[in-house]
Structures are given as C-alpha cells and as structure tokens.
C-alpha cells in the first residue's frame, strides 16, 4: 500500500551523519523523519567482522569494488546505524593541517579548530570516546615496540567504547563498543524522530515550497514531503541519489579513499587468541600521506591475507595464535567517480591510482615491514600476490619501488569527498554548511562533504561536521 508522510525535516540515511543530524534536530523540536534502506539490527545481532555480518549488514555483500587498476574492494554498511555498526570505532579529531587544506582552496568557512571543538567534545562525550584502560592489546604492543625501536612517532588511538571495570591488572578488558544504534539513534527516537527502516530513496524533487522524497518500501511507493531534506547516505549512495535527481554539478566527481595494503606477520610469541581485539596503535611518523595500524586478525582474515602465499605453505593450524595483520595506508587522491547504471540499484564506482600512489604504497609497505621486523616478526606476508615470504630486512629489496597493479591486493573502508563542501563553486557541490549549491533546503551531511581524505579514521570528522551543520540549520550554532 502506498504511504505518504509529511514532516519538517527528512533525513535520508541513518549512518553517523544521518543519526547525529536526526538527534540534533529532534532535540530542538523539529519534526523529523529518518529513513534507512537497510534493516534495524542490534549491534550484537552477529559476531563482529564475520561472514554473518557480511550477510546481514554489508551493502552488496561487500562486493561492489571501486573499479580501476588495481580494483579496490570496499566495504559499506546497509543497516540502521550505517558504517558505525561494522567498524572498529577508532576515533580521531580532524588534524589541523587538513582543516587548513579544506579552508583553502575549497574555501570552507568557519572551519577553524576552535569552531569544531565543541562538536568534537559533544560527540566524544556521547560516544564514550576513550583509550583502553587495560593498556594496548598484544598486536598493538608489537607495533608500539617496533616504532619505538625505530624512533618513529606512534600513538594509541581512542575508540568509542564503554569499558567495564578492570578486575585485575592484565585481565582482558570487557565492555561494549558504541555505535549509532547505541547512542544517537535512540536519542533521536526519544526526542520524537520517526525512524523508518527498509525504505529506499529513489529520487528527490522540488514541489512548490517543499521537497519530496520518492522512496520505495517493499515494492510500494513511500513518499515524504518535507520542508528540508538532509541526504546522509554515505560517500557512494549520496552522490548516486543526487545524480538520479538531476543534481550533478561537482557531484560524484571527486571521490577520495584511503587505499590500504595489509601485511600478515608471524611472531615468536602468541599475539592472537579466541577473543582477539583489534589493536588501536597507529604510526604517524610519515603522515600524511602514509599511516600504519593494526587490522582484524581473526582466522578467516589471516587465511585471506596469506592466500596468495600458498606456495609458501604457511601452516595456519599451527601458527595462527602467533600471527597478526597490520595495514599501511595512504591518503588517496580525489580521483574517483560515482555513476548510476541503468537496471542496477548499485552505482558504478571507478577509482584510478596514479603511478605516484603505487610508489607511495610501496614505500608504505616497506616501512611497515621494517617496523614489524623491528618488533620481532620472523615472517611477513605482504598483500602482493606471488611475493615470496619475507624473513629479514634484506628480503625487502624484493618489494618493487612501484607496486605492480596486477598483483597488489588493496582494500579500503574509508570513502569521502564525493560532494565536497566549500564556497569555491568550481570545486564544490555544497556550501560550507552542507547546503547543495543552488538548491535551498537540500543538504548533504555525511562523509561526502569532506574535501579530501583526512589521513586519519574519519568518523570523528564526519560526526563533528554533521553536528555543526545541523546546528547551523537551526541557527543555533
């Protein structure tokens, strides 16, 4: 049966950008309806980083890579809470040099560190952003030791996590990771926001003084008339929706991502176990553009990381407790495009890495291998198909100075910049507060806004900017 809803503000998408927008506006008395294409699932509806999570929460099952040479597999969520439901919850504020870059040449106004500070603080309080009181995990400790031996700058990154009390020194920390379904979505609902999962927005049109969201729920039309619309579907689906609606200027033309290459390391002592947690240690010595950190190291991921080294005959059965996976990433260029394709609900994503990016990635993986050897690794398995197992620093000469496009296995979880913000009309799709240029009361409020790759985990930046923009909309900034 066709449904029709009238409201003041429609929020399309319930990831970090959408959730904080809905919570902020509802709390200030706005009549808000938030729609989400995916289902409403609890944070613990499936084990984290599992194939069950792929089944339940990943868009396209995780199989819509950015096409290029090489292809870059990417992960997007399709559920209430969006990416916050499937990530590790690592948190950074936007670095000062990145804010400077966004102020010029993109000409983003009101983007000093002091402008964002209250928004960072509000998000950090709501999400319980903190360091692990139990100290670094075993994989983190290896990274820390390696960096310190080389004299490289390293830091533990805080996470949005509610830790339980420590019972005794050295005990495994327990607690609960935070996400949008744990924080801003319940806040929005208790302030009166109507959340409707299972609704896909197909198109936006202007109807006299209001916006109309043409959506579909279970193959039936679902229409929303709203005074204002916030599009918060993420860096891929937001430009796709705007382009389907005929809004194309600087939309989906400058997608940025952080391509990462992984290295599986074998140590002499145990670093992995049944309850292995993701490490929060990162190395920022070469940032930007290069950053390094710990990755998910469960057995399926170890098998995947070492798959191309099958000829090396790694015995995972015997070794997995002594193994952990690390990543080296670069802040990739704004070189991607997002385009709709006839007969397909999913858009086509293209992303081209330049020769200099492949050289940066080669440098990044060499740095990471050096660090892991310094930390005591005995064997390394870099994500370059056909590469022999590395057993000492001398073996690093086998890594080419420019990674081969046909054998390099990249991945990414961070996507941004498909609708960059700012007052520079030639570069940006929306203004400094997210309003689409030339379209009154139509806003973008998610990772698409970020002018470039931020070089750090982006969710702190997304949340702070989205809160800032929502408050600006209410003139309560």
């Amino acid at each position, binding site marked *: 049966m066709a449904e029709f809803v009238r409201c003041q503000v429609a929020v399309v998408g319930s990831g970090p950008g959408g959730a904080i927008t809905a919570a902020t506006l509802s709390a200030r008395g706005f009549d808000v309806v938030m729609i989400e294409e995916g289902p409403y699932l609890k944070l613990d509806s499936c084990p984290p980083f599992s194939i069950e999570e792929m089944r339940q929460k990943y868009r396209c099952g995780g*199989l819509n890579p950015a096409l290029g040479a090489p292809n870059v597999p990417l992960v997007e969520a399709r559920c209430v809470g969006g990416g916050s439901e499937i990530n590790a919850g690592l948190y950074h504020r936007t670095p000062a040099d990145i804010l400077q870059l966004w102020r010029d040449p993109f000409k983003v106004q009101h983007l000093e560190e002091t402008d964002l500070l209250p928004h960072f603080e509000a998000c950090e309080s709501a999400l319980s952003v903190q360091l692990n009181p139990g100290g670094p995990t075993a994989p983190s400790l290896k990274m820390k030791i390696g960096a310190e031996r080389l004299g490289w700058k390293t830091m533990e990154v805080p996470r949005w996590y509610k830790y339980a009390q420590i019972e005794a020194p050295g005990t495994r920390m327990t607690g609960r990771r935070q996400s949008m379904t744990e924080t801003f979505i319940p806040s929005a609902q208790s302030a009166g926001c109507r959340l409707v999962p299972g609704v896909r927005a197909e198109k936006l049109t202007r109807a006299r003084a209001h916006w109309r969201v043409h959506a579909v729920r279970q193959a039936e039309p679902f229409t929303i008339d709203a005074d204002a619309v916030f599009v918060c579907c993420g860096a891929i689906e937001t430009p796709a929706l705007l382009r389907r609606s005929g809004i194309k200027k600087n939309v989906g033309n400058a997608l940025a991502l952080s391509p990462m290459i992984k290295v599986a390391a074998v140590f002499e002592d145990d670093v992995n176990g049944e309850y292995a947690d993701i490490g929060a240690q990162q190395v920022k010595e070469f940032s930007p553009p290069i950053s390094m950190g710990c990755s998910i190291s469960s057995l399926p991921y*170890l*098998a995947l990381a070492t798959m191309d080294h099958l000829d090396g005959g790694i015995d995972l059965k015997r070794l997995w407790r002594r193994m952990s996976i690390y990543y080296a990433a670069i802040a990739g260029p704004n070189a991607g495009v997002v385009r709709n394709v006839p007969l397909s609900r999913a858009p086509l994503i293209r992303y081209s890495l330049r020769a200099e990016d492949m050289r940066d990635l080669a440098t990044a993986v060499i740095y990471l291998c050096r660090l892991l050897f310094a930390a005591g690794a005995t064997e390394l398995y870099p994500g370059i198909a056909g590469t022999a197992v590395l057993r000492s620093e001398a073996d690093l000469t086998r890594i080419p100075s420019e990674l081969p496009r046909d054998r390099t296995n990249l991945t990414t979880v961070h996507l941004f910049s498909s609708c960059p913000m700012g007052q520079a009309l030639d570069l940006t799709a929306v203004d400094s507060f997210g309003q689409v240029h030339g379209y009154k009361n139509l806003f973008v409020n998610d990772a698409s806004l970020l002018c470039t790759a931020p070089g750090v985990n982006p969710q702190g930046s997304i949340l702070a900017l989205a809160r800032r923009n929502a408050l600006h909309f209410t003139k309560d900034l």
Partner: protein
Amino acid sequence: MLPYLSKTISALCDAIAVTQDHRAAGAPATSYDDVAEFVLEQLRKMPPFLSWPVLLATSAFGMSRLLLEGSLFYKRPWQRRYVQVEIWRHSRFGPCRGLIRFYSSLAVLALYSRRGTGGAAASR
C-alpha cells in the same frame, strides 16, 4: 541462476576448499556445501554490471578443456578439477587469475569461518 552455473560454482568452491582445508584446524570436511552456498548468496548480492561478467567468465571456465577432458568442469573428478583451477590461477591472462582469486577469497572466508576451525572470534 542456470543449474549449469551453480553446479560449476559449487564444484569450483569444492576444489578451492579442499586445497585450503589442510591449513585450517580440525579434520578436513567431507562436504563444502556451506561454502558454495555462501559464495552463491554473495554473488546474488553483487550489482548486475559486475555479476554478469563474473558469471560469463565462470561459464567459460566451466566449459574450458571440454574437448581435452571430454566433460564439463563440474563432472570431472576432484584431481582434474584441481589441475584446471591451478592452470587458471597461474594463467598469464589477468581475468583468468582474477576469476580464481575472486572465488578463492569468498571460499576461504567461508571455510575459515566455520565453527570449530579454531580461529579467533574477533571482539568489538
């Protein structure tokens, strides 16, 4: 999906899983139906502009060496399936390698996610 394609994909997943299973803890399995089921499920979720080329390449894979072997891939005994997977895995032609890598990634994820494989269940 055509029965020919699902049988080819199941046989391909079987061949990949058998070669990988020695690395997992626990006794090798006798059936990999769950692995094939996961791969088929994920394929159905792919955007059509990506799944069609994959299925086309899979179809070619299933019929290649037909004249030499006298049978389709899924009808051959395990050892001969293994040989063909290895030929495509090490092919000089990138799309052949890419196809095997695509199926191997999914099959390996499913195989090592089985209960009792002794692996770490990552915590949040």
